[in-house]
């Protein structure tokens, strides 16, 4: 079952409405964490997620503040509201985690990922691949007489769509970064 994207207004802090927690529909949420960039922190996050059986669609991590040794981890998870609240609470319990933000709950956000897509083919298929690449504003970052590597950036759905269209045109290989997400507006993650 494909997860629904949920955008919602703020809820009363400390008390999620019961009706909402009992909602059995599956939602996809983008959750961002600011963590100490120390050995083992990623293992803690991943171990928690796999140990408790949560569903993770994508997870990205990179240092974002060298001076303060802070890394940002973006988690795309899907589940019922109750499970998503659990994921956030459990992540918040980890000692090296500074901040847990539910970008889906806390107003509009932007989520993007990058994919490198290798397509091999000749003749009409090769031309068609290039044409579709153009429509998706994909950059050709490598090219040989028999292949292209496209760099495509966008939402998960856009990248999925591009890959689907490349399938009959000689899709060989895909490398995706996973989702990086950020809230819209003038406020930073640290508030």
């Amino acid at each position, binding site marked *: 079952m494909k997860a629904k994207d949920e955008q919602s207004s703020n809820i009363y802090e400390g*008390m999620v409405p019961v009706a909402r927690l009992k909602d059995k529909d599956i939602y996809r949420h983008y959750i961002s964490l600011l963590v100490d960039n120390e050995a*083992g922190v990623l293992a*803690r996050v991943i171990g928690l997620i796999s*140990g408790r059986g949560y569903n993770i669609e994508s997870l990205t991590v990179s240092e974002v503040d060298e001076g303060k040794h802070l890394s940002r981890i973006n988690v795309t998870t899907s589940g019922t509201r109750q499970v998503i609240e659990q994921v956030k609470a459990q992540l918040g*319990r980890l000692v090296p985690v500074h901040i847990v933000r539910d970008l889906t709950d806390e107003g509009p956000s932007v989520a993007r990922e990058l994919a490198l897509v290798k397509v091999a083919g000749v003749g009409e298929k090769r031309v068609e691949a290039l044409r579709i690449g153009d429509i998706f504003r994909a950059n050709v970052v490598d090219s040989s007489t028999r292949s292209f590597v496209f760099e495509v950036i966008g939402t998960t759905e856009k990248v999925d769509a591009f890959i689907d269209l490349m399938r009959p045109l000689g899709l060989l290989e895909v490398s995706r970064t996973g989702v990086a997400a950020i809230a819209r507006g003038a406020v930073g993650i640290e508030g």
Partner: protein
Amino acid sequence: MAAGTARTRKSDTRSGQKYVGARLILKALEEQGVDVVFGYPGGAVLPIYDELFKQNRIRHVLVRHEQGAVHAAEGYARSTGKVGCVLVTSGPGATNAVTGLTDALMDSIPIVCLTGQVPTHLIGNDAFQEADTVGITRPCTKHNYLVRDVDQLASTIHEAFYIARSGRPGPVVVDVPKDVAMAQGQYSSAPRGGSRAQHKTYRPQTKPDPALIEIAMRLIAGAKKPLFYTGGGVINSGPRASKLLRELVKLTGVPITSTLMGLGAYPAADKQWLGMLGMHGMYEANMAMHDCDVMINIGARFDDRVTGNLEFFSPGSKKIHVDIDPSSINKNVIVDVGIVGDCAAVLEEMLAVWKARKYRADQKALNSWWREIDRWRARDCLRYEQRGKVIKPQYAIQRLHELTKDRETYITTEVGQHQMWAAQFCRFEHPNRWMTSGGLGTMGYGLPAAVGVQMAHPDALVVDIAGEASILMNIQELSTAVQYRLPVKIFIINNQYMGMVRQWQELLHGSRYSQSYTESLPDFVKLAEAYGCIGLRVDNPAKVDDTIREMISINQPVICDVRVDQKENCYPMIPSGKPHNHMLLGPETEMSTAIEGEGKALV
């Protein structure tokens, strides 16, 4: 791994005084108020043991197995409210400690466990007695550290104590490579302000949201069938929480039940006390949970032993849940009011609001609620008959309780039928007197825990109520008890079966007792003598009292082998997969049909 994140005072730094790493560890432990360490030496911790040898402020208790060290520290921690401290070596020392650490994590017991590690340059090389201790213990600790820099050693230990005791308590591992313990480094003192010192990330919320307290108290005041359901969080919060709980329960007139972990927070002799709830809890407590209209959960976590089938769990009630751990709220049971905070702080606010708003319980409704409860009580769900020449296990435990209740008594248990009978028949009046492995259900917990309790309370009576199977899992700790002259009493309810396993085989597997009967049990009296303590045996109901009196009178460790009815089962019982109002009250119920369908797959 980064460490020393707490702000530290730099007095020692300024003086430039350097100490060897092992000395820094002991200085930090001393500053944290550690008076006893439970441990076992080995190659990687020899420098630390050498420093222990050179001082006499911190006592060391040499256990006989590292699992015992952690359980002993748990017993010490639970009975005192302080952080328990463990010291073990690398590799097998650390892996042996894993069961104890998991036990402490499940029951929220504050422990700091120092583990030795191979020297830094050998880490990752499959060196002798190397194990990836931080990797192995990551999921079974609240937090863990590998200290690579000797200058971070003291501050990491201070931080470990802060993490272990703050918020929801738990075990913390500090892994110290041998070269770090032998290097020269600077000491840093603990941050000022004790537990209130600001950690850069870990600052658990202890003060509740006042708006939520208002909502909760309005609900309680308007309730017709309210019920308090309290847990280990009240004990962990400290004696003040128990005092405030008693005050609030008295003030509101509401009945109260508790989990296994919460026994003692409310006095069992009080008439508002319904006894323990859950799978082997009291009939009246479980029926009240099912039928109540406002449930006030304070410091309990809706564990599956308590809730039974979630689908039918207390269907008609509004639920208030107080927990210091935000992840406990809405985890198993969706609640109407989730209050994050320390039990004592929340109870204090609750009392203040109740008084300020001049709330009164609906006395008419409460009276009729109590009449309903009294009808359930009249079923007398713990009844048993002591007839004939065979000792009933319930009788033995009940007599033990009666003959020990008027002195300062601490009870530990192993895991199984005897544990549930102990929870049913030992009636606790005070917190911190009851040590049992609740969450993990660790057989072998009770004896080492009793060692830890007795270390902390040398003049008290400490009894491990055990089963003959459980006690053999950590029997070696009897040697520890003898070495330190700890007069712990081991009261073995001996039915020659793993009783709870046998009970479930009766329920689920056509009474095919696969591997649940222990042949070739040791002669426990001779075993006691072999260890250098006293062994007693009783198999006659008429001699139970005298034997217990004799056991108490002996000022050294005693094993009391109580030969009991082999076939007795533990009732009442909520069969797995069933709701609270489907309790089995006794063997007259048809066991084989009690659990069906999906319930059979549950544990």
